[in-house]
């Protein structure tokens, strides 16, 4: 089986993915979903990291409502039952919607508070994501999975195979944190650019144009980045190398990656609406956020880990 490469932080080193022979019995989309579900049933403790992160997210969402920052909390299906959503990493505030006006003209102290707030959330999601990916990776026997997609390794058997420990190394955690922050900075900068330079739908533009832009720009980029966190946490890659590796997998299996990307994004959105219309909007926001993060975030992390473990066995080459 393929052993994750830990060479960057001194932990046990496995075979380079690029040196792996391609495996004819590669795991497909259905196989990944089966692995994810069965892994979750076998190890419900995988829910714990994102349950804790969900509590952080719920608290943050309610605090956001009470803060003077203009932010919306929108529960499914306010944006429509058919809602296109992508998430590079699970978000701890899946109901939050902002406009570019949020950042325009912010006083430095409030901008600093906003950035600190986002950094704190990024740190929380980093720890949870890395934790679940690491735990999931330990539990997946790639060889078994390929030969029998429904098979899951026996819990605890990985230690005897020399897999890394439960807690990811600080180096990998740091790189994942840098990656998550980088994504957030790009999104925030995009928001600022849109507002500062008045970039928006031009005269006569339609929603169709935005849809095409989303389909042909956002989705391909997000697909290329989908497995980056796993490449960092499991593969031990630096962010740039991880992005390249993730992009290679996306090129090889574009349909699978796009489906996983949209499914995880949609799932996170749908789960925000489970408590919609409750007795109190704030309670609805808190419970919807918690459920979305705890369940959606966990599934997202497991599927990313499973896909990386299984597909990296097929061999990785950027050429």
């Amino acid at each position, binding site marked *: 089986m393929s052993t994750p490469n830990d060479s960057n932080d001194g932990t046990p080193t496995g075979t380079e993915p690029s040196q792996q022979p391609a495996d004819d019995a590669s795991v497909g989309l259905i196989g990944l979903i089966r692995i994810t579900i069965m892994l979750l049933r076998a190890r419900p403790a995988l829910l714990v990291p994102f349950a804790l992160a969900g509590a952080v997210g719920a608290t943050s969402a309610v*605090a956001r*409502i*009470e*803060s*003077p*920052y*203009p*932010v*919306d909390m*929108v529960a499914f299906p306010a944006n429509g039952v058919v809602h296109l959503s992508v998430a590079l990493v699970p978000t701890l505030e899946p109901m939050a*919607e*902002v*406009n*570019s*006006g*949020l950042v*325009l*003209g*912010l*006083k430095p*102290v*409030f901008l600093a*508070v906003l950035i600190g707030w986002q950094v704190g959330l990024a740190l929380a999601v980093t720890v949870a994501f890395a934790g679940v990916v690491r735990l999931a990776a330990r539990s997946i026997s790639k060889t078994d999975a390929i030969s029998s997609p429904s098979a899951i390794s026996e819990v605890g058997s990985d230690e005897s195979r020399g897999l890394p420990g439960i807690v990811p190394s600080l180096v990998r955690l740091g790189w994942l944190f840098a990656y998550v922050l980088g994504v957030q900075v790009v999104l925030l900068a995009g928001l600022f650019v*849109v*507002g*500062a*330079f*008045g*970039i*928006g*739908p*031009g*005269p006569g*533009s339609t929603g169709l144009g935005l849809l095409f832009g989303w389909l042909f720009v956002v989705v391909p980029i997000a697909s290329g980045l989908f497995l980056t966190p796993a490449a960092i946490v499991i593969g031990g890659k630096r962010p740039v190398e991880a992005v390249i590796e993730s992009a290679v997998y996306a090129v090889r299996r574009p349909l699978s990656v796009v489906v996983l990307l949209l499914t995880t994004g949609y799932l996170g959105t749908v789960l925000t609406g489970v408590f919609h219309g409750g007795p109190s909007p704030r309670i609805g926001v808190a419970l919807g956020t918690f459920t979305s993060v705890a369940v959606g975030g966990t599934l997202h992390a497991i599927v990313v880990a499973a896909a990386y473990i299984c597909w990296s066995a097929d061999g990785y080459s950027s050429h």
Partner: protein
Amino acid sequence: MKNSVENVSRRAVLAGAGSLLGAGCLGAERTPGTSDTDWRMYGRDPGRTRFVPNASLPRDGVDIAWERSVSASGWYPPVVANETVYCQYSNGLFVLDAATGEGTRASTYGPFGRDILPMAFASTELYRDGVLVVPYGTVIGGYAADRGGWPDSVSGIGQERARWWLDGDSTSASRLPPRASAGEWLGSPLVVDGTLVSLHPRSAALSASDSDDGSNRWRFDLETVAADGYVASPVGHVVDTTTGTAVVKLRTRREEAAVVVPLLVGISSENGSLEWRTTTDEVSSGDTKPGVEPADSLTTRDGTVYTIDWNTSTRALRLCELDAATGELGWTKSLDRSEHIGVAVDEARLYHVGLIDREEMPETFRIVALDRDSGSRRWAVTIDDAPLVPRLPYGAPPTVADEHLLVPGKRGLHALDRGTGETLWTFTEMVPTSGGGSVERSGMTPAVVTDDRIVIGTTLALYGLE
């Protein structure tokens, strides 16, 4: 009353705590700071007095300090804050230096700035530049106001510069609620110490909102003040800062009947509780002018409210004085006018601009100054001119500044001595017509006085006068 207080309690406490945590602990002050040169809302101040106490204007005529020409007028009343003029017209928004007239004209290619009511400006704790408040009928948008940040063109509803939307029922930071047309009411928000006080006829509510995020501080359901079997429609509102009372004027109409009962209510601007309600008369809507009750017909200063309505028996325009704290009626004064144009109030006098019919003559300005204490007439004059658009919910009401009473009209801008009614000067400019001739530029907005200058929108030009 109980309903309003309940509305306040929990949310207000939570919002207050949030603001304290978010802003108070960080020691934020509202910026940009207020100044004597500001004209931040329609009517200049929360009482819509249109009085500029410390201005200095020439008695012998004005010169053009700057001029910005346009290809279509359609001016909305300018607002001034932080030495910046914001003035919307048919095809764009001017954001200009009040002293030089230099700045951006943001062309508009969508609903931004169209079919709106007069804008307002509010300071903010979170943002350096404050917020430009644009009322689209029942929906109000808050936009980043920074003078240097406006692009050359604004598409759509200006979403990229919007911070929040509110409609009296809810607030959103990212989505525009369904809009409704402006109608026969003056829905221009008032700004009182960083709080927006706004009317929302669709939800029949008067609401107070935070200028940073548009969050609701309190909401008063205006349906609760109408008598059983009557439906209430808001007309306009002012806030008396001396007594802390928001005064709302309503028309209440019996269902399936033509009887209209004007109603004034006093609501605490602190917590949204009902303080008083007063009816002035009962009128048949068929007896009155179009619009029934003039929308821009309220002003308040130093604890006294002045309202204009129609006397049923004499069919004359009538001014009424009320106590802002109790709603108790004071003096009334009948005026033989065919139309109400506007009202302004200074320390001692109330100035009313109306129209009179003269046989075989066009309608003409009739201007009267009344003593605020007794309602007695100090002076009255007739000017051979009339407003260009007299029947909008808002228009070109008079301004009191220095020794002047400024009255926009078809011939430009008239300046009268506010002590005697004597005409001091008339600012008239000509504009060429397509037929090769020329016509006078009409004054189409209130004369906004800022830092000893007058800003006024006229036919195809915005002027800064000094």
